[in-house]
């Protein structure tokens, strides 16, 4: 089977404006979760008053014209893509053989809602002509393709919070099918806006720990009370090992395989038996040519919701049996919050670095571990063995389950 490797990574997250800053802040156990200072928090009396905004605003990185022409979600995507592309050494002679497969959970929501506000206040003639091209969900994939002049297709992967991981699984398929030499994959999200906060809060999905935002995202803790909305983007440049070696590229890790399943159970609730998630893990391991016994690190989806964390544990126990207690699990949303469509990509970047640097990143705020989730949760950076076989999980509204397998090289 064709070996797929990671040759470039990029990210802008609540922890930092690039991969290195984000990763080092993660290892230092920093939280990217802060109070929201926007006036609309008070105006709308939002029940949740904090989130994980990107550490470095896009306006400090991009040209003003780029800010005006791109929705915030696409702005972050372009920032992360430029970093990843440069990191990969810009492997671009045959632009027709470079494919973008990029994810978002929601798309250009800020653009849509801002335009609607303008229309209600000032009428139809004031709606700007760039509204549709900025709000469409494929805008981020298109922006990356245009920015890097890649012409092998710009696909969009939309599966809620599983999107980012699904895009990486797709990228592996594209490369193994031979339809591209290089795939730029990952995901983005930027919906820190009063409407999604109100809507997520309406379904009791968000933590309401308003007095202590940095302690709000606490996967596996008995006092977890919901996820924390984050924003950001992460990008991975994947290519076949043969292609990477031929051009002398540095290789971070392998994406050994990936898989996607669906629960067909409930639009928002995970299957309490964890069957769909367990199948995704098993299928990904098979796709990667490894077994459950090989896995020695897990970056869990672990959003810090009461129900979700248990369901994922149940799925993991199905796959790994009691050995699950011996596998170091990192729940990095405790630092970053939940980046929705960007989350799987950011966590894959963290897992690639875990495999590359042989260290599992810490999980914050685990003060009183839920006895129903007897996992070996990594709370301080922990050394990993020389040969790392890791999985990174993502699950999304709609019953989407996506898993990728990451191996050290």
């Amino acid at each position, binding site marked *: 089977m064709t070996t797929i490797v990671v040759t470039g990574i990029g990210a802008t997250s609540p922890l930092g404006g690039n991969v290195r800053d984000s990763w080092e802040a993660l290892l230092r156990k920093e939280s990217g979760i802060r109070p929201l200072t926007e006036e609309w928090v008070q105006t709308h009396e939002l029940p949740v008053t904090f989130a994980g905004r990107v550490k470095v605003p896009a306006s400090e990185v991009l*040209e*003003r*014209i780029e800010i*005006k022409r791109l929705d915030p979600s696409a702005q972050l995507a372009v920032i992360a893509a430029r970093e990843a592309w440069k990191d990969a050494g810009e492997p671009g002679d045959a632009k027709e053989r470079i494919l973008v497969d990029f994810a978002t959970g929601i798309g250009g929501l800020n653009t849509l809602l801002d335009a609607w506000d303008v229309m209600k206040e*000032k009428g139809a*003639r*004031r709606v*700007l*002509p760039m509204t549709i091209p900025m709000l469409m969900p494929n805008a981020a994939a298109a922006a990356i393709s245009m920015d890097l002049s890649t012409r092998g297709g710009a696909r969009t992967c939309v599966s809620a919070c599983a999107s980012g991981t699904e895009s990486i699984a797709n990228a592996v398929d594209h490369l193994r099918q031979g339809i591209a030499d290089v795939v730029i994959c990952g995901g983005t999200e930027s919906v820190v806006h009063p409407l999604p906060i109100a809507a997520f809060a309406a379904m009791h999905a968000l933590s309401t720990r308003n007095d202590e935002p940095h302690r709000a995202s606490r996967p596996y803790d008995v006092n977890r009370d919901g996820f924390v909305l984050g924003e950001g983007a992460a990008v991975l440049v994947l290519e076949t090992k043969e292609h990477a070696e031929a051009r002398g590229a540095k290789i971070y890790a392998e994406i050994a395989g990936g898989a996607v399943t669906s629960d067909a159970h409930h639009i928002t609730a995970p299957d309490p038996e964890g069957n769909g998630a367990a199948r995704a893990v098993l299928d990904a391991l098979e796709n990667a040519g490894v077994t459950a016994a090989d896995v020695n690190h897990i970056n869990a989806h672990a959003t810090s919701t009461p129900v979700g964390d248990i369901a994922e544990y149940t799925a993991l126990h199905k796959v790994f049996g009691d050995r699950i207690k011996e596998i170091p699990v990192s729940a990095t949303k405790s630092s970053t919050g939940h980046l929705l469509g960007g989350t799987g990509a950011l966590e894959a970047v963290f897992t690639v670095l875990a495999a590359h640097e042989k260290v599992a990143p810490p999980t914050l705020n685990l003060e009183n571990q839920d006895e129903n989730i007897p996992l070996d949760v990594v709370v301080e950076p922990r050394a990993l063995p020389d040969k790392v076989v890791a999985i990174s999980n993502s699950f999304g509204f709609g019953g989407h389950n996506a898993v990728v397998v990451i191996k050290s090289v």
Partner: protein
Amino acid sequence: MAHSKDEVLAGLAALVNDETGVPAESVVFGKSFADDLDIDSISMMTIVVNAEEEFGVKIPDDKVSELVTVDDAVNFIVSAQS
């Protein structure tokens, strides 16, 4: 209150700069939006929408294609104000 020709030019130049990044001082009489300032149709439409608001005028869609040069736009806006 009606704006003078110079005021409209200055305001239009600011709108062009805001939308496209083209320096405001390049937006002068005699320049063509597309050929000289490299402004595409979607940017032009955005500038028109913003100019309507800025100057309190209505620029009908069928007029926009006739606004080829800076002179065309300024003259149209000045006359539409009255």
